[in-house]
């Protein structure tokens, strides 16, 4: 098997190497790839969209439909994980469960918790395999998380002028929640962002994107034509496009944050979304 694999790989590689004979060399300014489409984008996109970051302009506006589908892919991934590994809520979860008495710090162990006690003030649930409550880690993360979230928002909002945008900002925002789960435990995260909220948020983000597109249709233009935003608040055509990109990026950010949190929660808790990591 390994030898066949090696042979196949070497053959494919050789064929690929042979087929790169007529490619332009590295950094060639006159190659077709940097002349036809990209020249137009570099020279025209600022006056058409008022967005200095060309990547954002092309991503959010010229290829906006691609970006919408890309958001849909993230949304799909979250749904797919939910469909494949989420365990039904009423199923008896086998294994060990630990409860700590809040006053004395005494820990009680329970097998096969079919009926989990609800919000009980005297006992709190402790993760069985990951009890990190370390004072250094917890307090540092508590201090750092707001800054990470602020930075995530900045990356979403400043995508017009610097590297950034909805996807990157959304990932940073989701990372702050992952850090919350790592430093505290998964239940803290679920308490802050429960499943319902994350699912609704992910759908709302795509719907915001979709809504911007439908607004274009409602104004008599094509789907996703941000030119429809012209005249809103007295804006010019180009700043309408700029606003459209911003709205779209916010939608993307919401979906990406929610979807990544969903995937993290499901994967780390093996589908129970109660404890894990």
């Amino acid at each position: 098997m390994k030898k066949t694999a090696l042979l196949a790989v070497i053959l494919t590689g050789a064929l690929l190497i042979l087929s790169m004979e007529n490619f332009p060399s590295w950094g060639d300014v006159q190659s077709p790839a940097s002349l036809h489409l990209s020249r137009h984008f570099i020279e025209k996109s600022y006056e058409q969209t008022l967005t200095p970051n060309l990547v954002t302009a092309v991503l959010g506006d010229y290829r906006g439909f691609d970006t919408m589908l890309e958001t849909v892919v993230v949304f799909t991934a979250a749904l797919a994980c939910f469909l494949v590994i989420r365990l039904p809520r009423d199923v008896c979860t086998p294994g060990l469960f630990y409860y700590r008495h809040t006053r004395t710090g005494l820990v009680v162990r329970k097998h096969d918790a079919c009926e989990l006690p609800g919000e009980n003030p005297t006992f709190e649930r402790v993760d069985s395999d990951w009890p990190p409550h370390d004072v250094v880690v917890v307090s540092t993360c508590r201090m750092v998380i707001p800054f990470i979230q602020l930075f995530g928002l900045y990356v979403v909002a400043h995508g017009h002028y610097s590297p950034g945008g909805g996807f990157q900002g959304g990932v940073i925002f989701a990372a702050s929640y992952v850090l919350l789960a790592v430093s505290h435990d998964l239940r803290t995260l679920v308490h802050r962002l429960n499943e319902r909220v994350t699912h609704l948020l992910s759908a709302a983000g795509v719907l915001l994107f979709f809504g911007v597109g439908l607004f274009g249709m409602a104004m008599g233009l094509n789907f996703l034509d941000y030119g429809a935003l012209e005249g809103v608040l007295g804006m010019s055509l180009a700043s309408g496009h700029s606003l459209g990109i911003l709205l779209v990026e916010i939608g993307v950010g919401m979906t990406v944050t929610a979807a990544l949190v969903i995937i993290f929660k499901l994967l780390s808790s093996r589908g129970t979304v109660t404890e894990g990591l």
Partner: protein
Amino acid sequence: MHDVVLTILPLLFGSFLAILAGWTRSALVYPLGVVALALSTGFCVKLLLGVLSTGTATYLLGGWSPPWGIVFVIDTFSAGMMLLISGSALLTYLAFRAEIIEGFAEKTAAFVALLLLTVAGHMGIVATGDLFNLYVLIEVAALSGYALLGYGSGRAPLASLNYLCVGSVGASLYLLGVGYLYILTGTLNMADLAQIMLAAPVTASLHGAVAVILFGLWVKMALFPFHGWLPGAYAMSSPVAAALLAPLTTKVMVYVVIRLLIGVIPGAAIPEALPDVAMLLGTAAIFAGSLMAYRQIDQRRMIAYILVAEVGYMVGGMFIGNRTAMTGAMLHIFADALMTLTLFLALGSIARQRGEMVLANMRGLFRTMPFTMAAFVLGAMSMIGVPPLFGFFSKWYLLSGALESGQYLFMVGLLVSSLVNVVLFFRIFETAFFDEPGESVRDIEHWSRVTPLAVAAVLLIVAGLSSGLIVDRLIAGIIPASLI
């Protein structure tokens, strides 16, 4: 004006709303799916009528004109494909109402949303006129498909994971090929690319680009040596997912290859050896698919192997290189989708009553489920290629195309696979007709299941009788005049 995009938007919108509804009013989820699919089908009909009267429709997404923005381009053939996809999805969705509502408990919303997304993805693949957008749509369709097929107990996750690995490699290879073409031409729009490639010098790199793209698509469409994922994925999954995806996935990929061959890639850019390799693989697929179908015990797995053979028909037909065979391959997309739909719908109904789909479980079905079995017989006859049914006509075109070009091995393949299909299906008929059903068997045929199935089966006859019309109105205008 918006007809083109309105075929897809209800599905996307419906999937987002299904999630919102799933966490607030879960009773609304199933009707929402029906509305979305019905709207989409309705707009497909409108679009088809429009395209038939006014010619190719183009839609600029975002209002940017072609090379800069993304466009949807719908000709008569793709309008027919869109109708086929949304219609068959609607029939599946209606037929499996009970499974969808009961079978997924709290996850019904997620399942419905994924189902709508995968249909939207497949329709987008047909509609788009942009190479990279096609990749994204392939991934939308595939990713939701992995989840639908992977849901279930037993070996379903493993089969789906296998599909995911193979499918991702195929899509990545396609992406690589698009990158090659982008390096050489600097564009991603199909029409623009076709113009530039006509003038571009024919080089080794151009050949490489075309070969990599076609190779990636072959992997995605389960052509013979890469077919390993298909039988497992369709036989192990829930019957809903199999009935939804089996008529769509491979056929849509075949459609993409045909569209690239007749609309984008000029003949000179195709490497000389490629058609021969394709014919070889297609013929091998027919023989191997039929042979392996013969050895299967599970009936869904058997039909999945027949699908592998059918892919061989279409790939062979499009690479024979004459007009008749190309017409046959294009017609066979419709025929194969309808036949597969009928068979999988019927098997789904039977599986609901009898459990595991092995031959022993099919005793006496003609007596207990007469309508379902009648539809099954029609689907099977069409697979075999019995005259008034749709499958006969596409096979006829393929055969006469192969005869014109002297591809005798391919012809033998077609005939052998028909014969094997006869043996396979008559085995089922025999068990279902002559053997007594067991004492405890109480099969129920509910009208809500039989109606979609009957629609699909009647469509097989109607489409078969009007296949001349389909060829004239939908297909003939699309094949370039240079192909004789």
